[in-house]
Structure formats: C-alpha cells, structure tokens
C-alpha cells in the first residue's frame, strides 16, 4: 500500500526539529532512516500529519570515545556501526548484533536512534542496548535527560520518549577487562526479525560469571534482561545449575504467539539460547546445549 497524505518538513538543526515537535506533538513523526517508519506508514499502521525529516542534521551522526564512554549519535547508520573500529574495540556485541539487522540496502539507511525510538520488541539493537547497559540521551526544548535503556523501552513500539522529545545519542560504557559477549538469534531468513534471540554482555573471571546481562528479544513486549541469569553468577555451573536457571527463565518469560511461532516454541528457543550462551562464554563443552533445557 501507499502512505496516506502528510506534510513534510526537513529539519535544519536540532533546535528546528524540537520547535516542530513542540508545535505538532504526537501529530508529528520523526523520520530518521525510514526503514521502520516507512513500512509502518505504507502499511497504514500510522498516519502522521507531519513528517519531521532529521536526516540532514549531521551533528547527530558519528561515533566518539569520551573517557570510558562510547557515544553514538542517533543518526549513525547501521552500516556505520558495522564498520566502526571504535565499536568493534569497545562494544563488540553491537558489531555482532548489527550484522543480523536486515540486509545491506536497509543497513545503508537505517539508524541506531530510529531503531531504538521505533522499539520493535523483535529487533536486535534495543536488546543490545539493554545488554550493554546503555544510556539514551533525549532532548526537548527545556533541556536534556538521560534514560537507562531498560527504562527507555516500555512496550511494543513504546518508549519513554515524549512527543516533544528527540533521541539525540546513545552512550555505552566501554567494555571492561574480562568482558565477554554472545549474540544469537533464530530467524526464518538471515536478516529477518528474530523468532527468538539473545544479546549478552558478561564478565567472566576464573571460569565464573561475575556479571551476566542476558537480554532476550522477540519473547516479550520489550527486551527482557533475564533475572534467571542471576542464578548463574559466582557459581560453578553444573548441568543442574543450568537446568534451574533455564526453568526460571521459562517461568519469567511470557512470549507472544504469532504465525511464526507459538509461545511454547519461543520459550523453548529462549532456553536453548541461554544454554548456548553459557556454553560459548565459559567454553564448557560438557554443558552440551539443546539437550538439558
């Protein structure tokens, strides 16, 4: 289908975009890369009165390391994330996750800020932000605020952003010593939205997890930072310990059913992902994944 009629304004600066958002509120939609917004408009899921195109605001694009923080502008495209040596060095989980986002032609346009503001619960980048303990920087005409990624993502296509706010940047703590990461998803076709996936940032010391941020996606209305993973912290992992965590994960998740998978299938896949994650991060072939979940 085609998008319904709307007005279009190309914002010339952040201040200009904020003026437009202040004036139009929820009648306006911000157009960044358009790779989620345009499909939603073409499918008539949304029909904004005004499109505020922020694509030309170059100050919102770029990746910088400031002390122990990696700052990524909202307009930074997926292809730029994928090729960034700074991200590969300081947040390798993100490099790995972006390779799973759609296809080359989409990655050339899609942006980090756009993906986060769209908040599709099956998409890779919001979950990666939760796993990486990212901070979202949002601005309106009165000022700027910082929101933890976990609090930013509030539901299916829902975020903590107000209609007057613009997502400006994302700040990631740069990875510490002994950090390890794991990303995997199950999808029908490489690049499709996941049926179930996990993005994990961990700290491993002496064969034990001292931190394990296993963030599951496509199994709930937002990325789920698994509480079950706390059962795996500072303990020698045995098949029994893993089985207990796996059962707790099953209890914790409340996946939706759709034409791709039942809730039970998603729960099962999440447990497989947890097992594979532990197996991979600890290098423990004795915990064969898929057999004890």
């Amino acid at each position, binding site marked *: 289908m085609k998008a319904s009629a*709307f007005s279009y304004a190309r914002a010339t600066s952040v201040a200009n975009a904020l003026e437009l958002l202040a004036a139009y509120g929820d009648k306006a939609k911000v157009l960044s890369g358009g*790779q989620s917004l345009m*499909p939603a408009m073409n499918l008539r899921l949304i029909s904004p009165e005004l499109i505020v195109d922020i694509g030309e605001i170059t100050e919102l694009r770029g990746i910088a390391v400031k002390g122990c923080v990696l700052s990524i502008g909202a307009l930074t495209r997926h*292809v730029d994330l994928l090729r960034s040596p700074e991200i590969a060095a300081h947040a390798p989980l993100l490099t790995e996750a972006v390779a799973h986002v*759609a296809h*080359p032609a*989409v990655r050339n346009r899609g942006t980090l800020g756009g993906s986060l503001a769209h908040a599709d619960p099956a998409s890779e980048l919001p979950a990666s932000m939760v796993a990486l303990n990212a901070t979202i920087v949002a601005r309106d005409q009165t000022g700027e605020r910082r929101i933890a990624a976990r609090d930013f993502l509030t539901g299916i296509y829902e975020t903590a952003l107000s209609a007057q706010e613009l997502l400006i940047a994302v700040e990631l703590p740069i990875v510490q010593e002994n950090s390890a990461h794991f990303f995997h998803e199950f999808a029908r076709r*490489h690049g499709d939205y996941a049926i179930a996936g996990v993005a994990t940032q961990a700290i491993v010391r002496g064969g034990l997890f001292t931190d394990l941020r296993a963030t599951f996606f496509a199994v709930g209305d937002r990325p789920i930072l698994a509480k079950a993973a706390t059962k795996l912290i500072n303990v020698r992992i045995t098949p029994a310990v893993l089985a207990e965590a796996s059962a707790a994960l099953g209890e914790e998740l409340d996946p939706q059913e759709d034409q791709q998978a039942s809730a039970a299938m998603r729960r099962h896949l999440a447990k497989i992902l947890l097992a594979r994650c532990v197996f991979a991060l600890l290098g423990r072939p004795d915990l064969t994944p898929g057999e004890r979940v």
Partner: protein
Amino acid sequence: MTAAMPISLEVNGEGVDAHVLPRLNLADFLREHLKLTGTHVGCEHGVCGACTVRLNGEIVRSCLMLAVQTDGASVVTIEGLSDSGEIVDLQAAFRDRNALQCGFCTPGMLVTAQDLLEQETEPDRERIREHLSGNYCRCTGYQAIIDAVETTARARMGRKP
C-alpha cells in the same frame, strides 16, 4: 506543506527537476513520473528487494524513501546500470545461467549483486548469499543466481592485470 514540493536531483546522470507530493515514494516517482519502470514495486515495505536502486553510490530500498528526501541526491536505476554497460557481463551471466525466469526480481538482484562485486572482488558463495539475502526470487531457487554472480566475480578477476 501537503502541497507538492520542488525537488532537484540527478537520475542516471541526467538532471531532473520535479514537483512531488510528500507521500510519493522514490520507487513510484521513478516509475510513474520518470517512466523508469525497471525499478519494480513488490511488497512496499522493504522486504522483497525488487525496488533496490543506487542512491549516492549505495544501494537502498526505493519504496522506503520519499521522493522529497532525494532532493540534491544522485540516483542510479537498473536502466542507468544497464545503459552504461557497467553490468553487461553480469547480465550475460544471468542469462547464461538461467538466473531469471519471470524477471520480476532481476533488476533488484542485479543492482544488489553489482553492489557486492564493487565492494569485494572475490566473494565466496556464502558472502553472495548473504548480500542477496534481502532480495526475494520466487522462481529460480537462488542457486542459479549465486552461480551467475560467482561466475561474474571470477571473470572480472581474470580480466585484471
């Protein structure tokens, strides 16, 4: 602002000035305003890849871009790639390998395959498959398409001094 807006861009090397409604997407602009119907419209939500074109040197989904966003941009469509002779070998390989049947996906496949061959001189079958993963073909089963791209990559390597 719902009224038509002026845009000025370059399409296949030629300057184009037009007035377009904000809701008009780039694919429809190319097809209906410029009669460049080689760009195909399949799903209209970025899944099928039939509308792939080159924008400022990079491939994009023309169904997911507004024509108004291309003001000042340079667009190359399958007509441009074809007429310039840039992909004559790739087109021949598609024909030789039976890499098309109905041909609906072919413009998008060619634009995407050429994008890969420009970035990598020797992609293996896995890389070819990955790069084309966003382009649906409902006829060939893909193997012949991978064959054609691989053949072209090898032939281009052979021609290099």
